[in-house]
Every structure is written in C-alpha cells, then in structure tokens.
C-alpha cells in the first residue's frame, strides 16, 4: 500500500495527483477536491493554520486506517496551509484500488476523518474583519458513521 501525505502552501495539480495514483492493478480512482467557495457573504480570503508534525502524523494515521478497512492500492492526501483566496483549492484526497466501491468509501472516509481529526484551523476574512471558523456539527456526524 502506498500512502503519501503533503501539507503545503503551494497549489496542487489534480491531473498529476490522479495520474500518480493510477498504478498497476488499479481499475478505479476516486478523488475529492475541496475549495474556497466564492460565497455571496463576501469572503475576502481564508487562512489555514496547522500543527506542524501532528498534522502530517494524523493524516498518515487516517490513511493507514482506510487501508486497514478496504482493499485499496494507494492513498494520497494534499492539504494546503496559509492564506487562500476564493476559488483556490484547499484539499485533495485520492484513493485508488481494484474496484470503485471500495475506492469511493475509503475516499469519503478519509475526508470525514480529516475534517474532525486533523489539526487544521480556518480563519475567514470578510468586510467585518477576521474570525475563526467554528467546527460544524455535520462534520462530527459524518465521521461518527464510520465508528464500528
């Protein structure tokens, strides 16, 4: 099983990431891209803070947990940090494997866990100034469904 995790300020190329996951024996690549919404509420920018070291470790553990649950071939996680503008990409999660059902499930699992377990914090800037984003209850609910 190949696991690759990057926490970086630079943007990523989805085409390159999906190609890298397309290794021998892989029939399916499920992937997800999260981006900064161009919202009507007038968001100027968002800044992502993380806990260097623990973040990479948490993401790696989530990928290991995914591979222990599904027969998959590779997991790739890229998460950006720093200041991002509306329309910019935030996160890429890609999972490849022999079959699509497992690739989809593992990809969604990694995203759900990442949202509630990986130490990242978002601060949004709009016309009223800057404020830290509150954790959403829907994310905890999404992660809870994988409990066994």
């Amino acid at each position, binding site marked *: 099983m190949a696991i690759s995790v990057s926490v970086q300020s630079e943007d990523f190329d989805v085409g390159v990431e999906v190609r890298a996951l397309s290794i021998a024996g892989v029939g399916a690549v499920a992937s997800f891209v999260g981006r900064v919404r161009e919202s009507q509420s007038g968001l100027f920018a968002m800044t992502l803070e993380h*806990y260097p070291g*623990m973040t990479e470790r948490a993401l790696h553990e989530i990928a290991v947990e995914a591979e222990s649950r599904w027969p998959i071939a590779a997991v790739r996680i890229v998460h950006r940090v720093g200041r991002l503008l509306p329309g910019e990409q935030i*996160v890429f999660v890609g999972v490849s494997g022999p079959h699509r059902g497992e690739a989809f499930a593992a990809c969604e699992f990694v995203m759900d866990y990442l949202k509630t377990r990986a*130490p990242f914090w978002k601060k949004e800037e709009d016309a009223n100034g800057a404020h830290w984003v509150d*954790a959403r209850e829907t994310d905890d609910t999404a992660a809870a469904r994988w409990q066994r």
Partner: protein
Amino acid sequence: MKVQVLFFASLREALGTAGETLEVGEGCDVAAARALLAARRGEWQRLASPRIRAAVNQALVAEAHGLAEGDELAFFPPVTGG
C-alpha cells in the same frame, strides 16, 4: 518536571502566545496541567472548556493521560480543516 506547552488558532490568539515551558509536579496529568493554566484567570479560563482538546507528543489523549518530563502538551479548539 518541565513540559513544553503549545496553543493553536483562536486559543493562541486569545492568550497572546504560541506556548511556554511549564513546571508541573510529578504525577501530573493533562487535567491537572489544564487546571493549572486555567487558574490564571482572564482569557486563560478558556482552557477550562471541554471544547479545548489536548494532545501529548502530537497524539490526542484523554484528560487522565499522565505527563512525563519533556512532553509536548498542546491545547487547541475543535479542528476545521478540509
């Protein structure tokens, strides 16, 4: 013994510091270290909230987790990545 304490995000901003070296007694656990810091009053009382999570040596831990000399003890609000 000494532990290295770290604060992140809104907690870091409210406290006005990213961390400090803290002297704690032998047998001190996360809950005791948390209470020690929260006792400073003002913004430090934020640490008394169960919403503030704790990690030791970069792994999430329970409040009863015992600390050891040189441990890295981090406090932070619920995460909001992805």
